């Protein structure tokens, strides 16, 4: 029983990381339809922001707290810049966007290698997050609990922004009918950039979280990016909760499979499961059923 519970918690914490990484994609890919392969490098940027900050600020706890908003800004700014430079010219060509941003991703990785060196670096976690609590034989690592909390907090914040703020209304309006939004007086270009800023900023936050899990390096983001896209594909692009459910489901599935087989077999099985799932729901878990032929 404790084994099951322990594995479930491992799965949930894998899911929390996945969710945090996929959350930005629900905006840029889910809402805007942009396949941004450089999203992984925004994660990396967030991770390195934490690393650099820790060189400057002595306390690991303080630097972590400062890193969260700072990484959001750094990664968000990179995202907005990318949107302005390249992506806005490619909105009618989603597949080409994938390849273009892949090129950007390669360059950013190399840049990280040139600046920080190719080997991975380790950041120190605050003392508070290094321990673990044990409840009824089940071990909860503090850093995992922190990431879980952070992920849920981000989901909540994003939901509130989309639902309640004028910005959220504008974002949804542009997603639903770009032309109509434009003639209604919405500066769609500015909305796109803001959406991209938030989506990429969330990647930065995810990067901060990754520094708590292990060493980080130039390829840190790339390792997660395809899995994160799969979360959005399976979750469906219509609603945030699709990605939330999927992230945790894939996390638990992965952890259970890893426990009973091997990491590599687990990967293959998860992928097969996804293809089978798409047979049942080709548009993902949550879709908006409309008359259009999407």
């Amino acid at each position, binding site marked *: 029983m404790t084994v099951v519970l322990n594995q479930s918690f491992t799965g949930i914490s894998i899911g929390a990381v996945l969710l945090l990484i996929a959350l930005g994609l629900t905006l840029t890919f889910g809402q805007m339809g942009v396949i941004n392969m450089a999203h992984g490098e925004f994660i990396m940027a967030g991770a390195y922001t934490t690393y650099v900050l820790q060189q400057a600020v002595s306390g690991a706890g303080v630097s972590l707290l400062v890193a969260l908003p700072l990484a959001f800004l750094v990664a968000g700014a990179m995202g907005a810049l990318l949107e302005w430079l390249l992506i806005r010219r490619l909105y009618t060509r989603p597949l080409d966007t994938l390849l273009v941003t892949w090129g950007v991703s390669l360059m950013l990785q190399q840049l990280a290698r040139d600046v920080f060196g190719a080997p991975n670096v380790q950041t120190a976690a605050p003392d508070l997050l290094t321990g673990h609590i044990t409840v009824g034989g089940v071990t909860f690592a503090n850093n995992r609990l922190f990431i879980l909390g952070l992920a849920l907090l981000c989901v909540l914040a994003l939901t509130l922004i989309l639902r309640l703020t004028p910005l959220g209304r504008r974002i949804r309006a542009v997603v639903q009918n770009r032309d109509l939004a434009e003639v209604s007086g919405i500066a769609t270009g500015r909305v796109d950039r803001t959406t991209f800023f938030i989506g990429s900023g969330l990647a930065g936050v995810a990067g901060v979280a990754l520094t708590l899990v292990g060493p980080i390096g130039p390829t840190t983001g790339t390792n997660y990016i*395809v899995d994160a896209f*799969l979360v959005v594909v399976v979750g469906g692009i219509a609603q945030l909760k699709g990605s939330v459910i999927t992230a945790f489901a894939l996390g638990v599935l992965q952890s259970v499979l890893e426990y009973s087989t091997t990491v590599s077999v687990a990967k293959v099985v998860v992928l097969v499961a996804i293809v089978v799932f798409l047979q049942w729901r080709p548009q993902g878990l949550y879709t908006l059923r409309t008359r259009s032929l999407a």
Partner: protein
Amino acid sequence: MTTTTSPAGTTATEPPVTAPPFLERFRVPGAFLLGAVLLLGIAPLVLSDFRLNLLAKYLCYAVVAVGVSLAWGRGGLLVLGQGVFFGLGGYAMAMHLKLADAAVTGQTLPDFMQLYGTGDALPWWWKPFADPAFAALAATVLLPMAVATLLGFFVFRRRVKGAYFAILSQALAAAFAVWLVGQQATTGGTNGLTDIQGFFGYDLDDPVNQRMVYLIVAGVLLLLMAAARQLFVSRYGELLVAVRDSEERVRFLGYNPANVKLVAYVVAAGMAGLAGALFVPAVGIISPALIGIVPSIGFVIGAAVGGRASLLGAVLGAVAVAWTQSTLSDAYPAAWTYLQGLLFVVAVGFLPGGLASLVTVLRRKRRTTHDPVTGGAA
């Protein structure tokens, strides 16, 4: 309420990429003959053994590009998992050659299996590869095609979006590479299958036999280009473009677009498999590093640079990119990575027709009058 239904409006519209008239004009059969003379006659005469061997490697990538040009250039299917098929073909060939090498020295197990010491029985799924006919014919081409059929059938049947297809392809490449790394005792793990000595009884250390391998690769490339050319100009080729333009419309005409796409995808997979199989004797190695996400995307960049819709453009682009890579990557690895990234950005972002379309653009610039009929496509 009655203003939004349009099958064209909802499918992602990729840029109109048609082969430019410049490359179309000096095409079959003159260009084909010229290519054959260059590749089979002149190249072996003027190139050193070393250079010819490098060219053989580039031509393997060009074979993959032929398939990419068909599936992506014509069919609009962004095939980002070609590494999987390249790898299936490559591993199938390498497994046979490793077994043959072992047999020459009187061993039953390939060298790496003895090294990792996992017992002395050959895994059951290695056994069929001892048979040269199975390895050469069935496994190198049919195995990739079977996998592509399976995946393509499920993906296209349910009309999974193009973007989803691209992501699934990538995930497949990642999963395959991870799986290979994880099975070190039976697949050689990260190292892959290396140090291949012979090719169906011929010693690969002998330069004469290396030249023979080159000639085989070049011949296969020419053959596949001819076959792809036929597909391009056939009714099927027109239908494939129609599916890319508006899948929903094709469905209303009574075709099943899933089958149309499946054929292109499977043929492209077969070509990648064959390329992988030829890569093994030409280069002497197959490893996970050659087939994961990164190299899989690398397979399309050549076609993108040269011109995805133009067969010749895609092939020349693949060779040029491979040549640049091997020239730069050893001496200046950082520079090569930046250049590769830049190639993606510039070629795909700003020149979607590739270098092949540059020719048309330049010609049009020289003309003073603008003809709306021929000018509309770009």
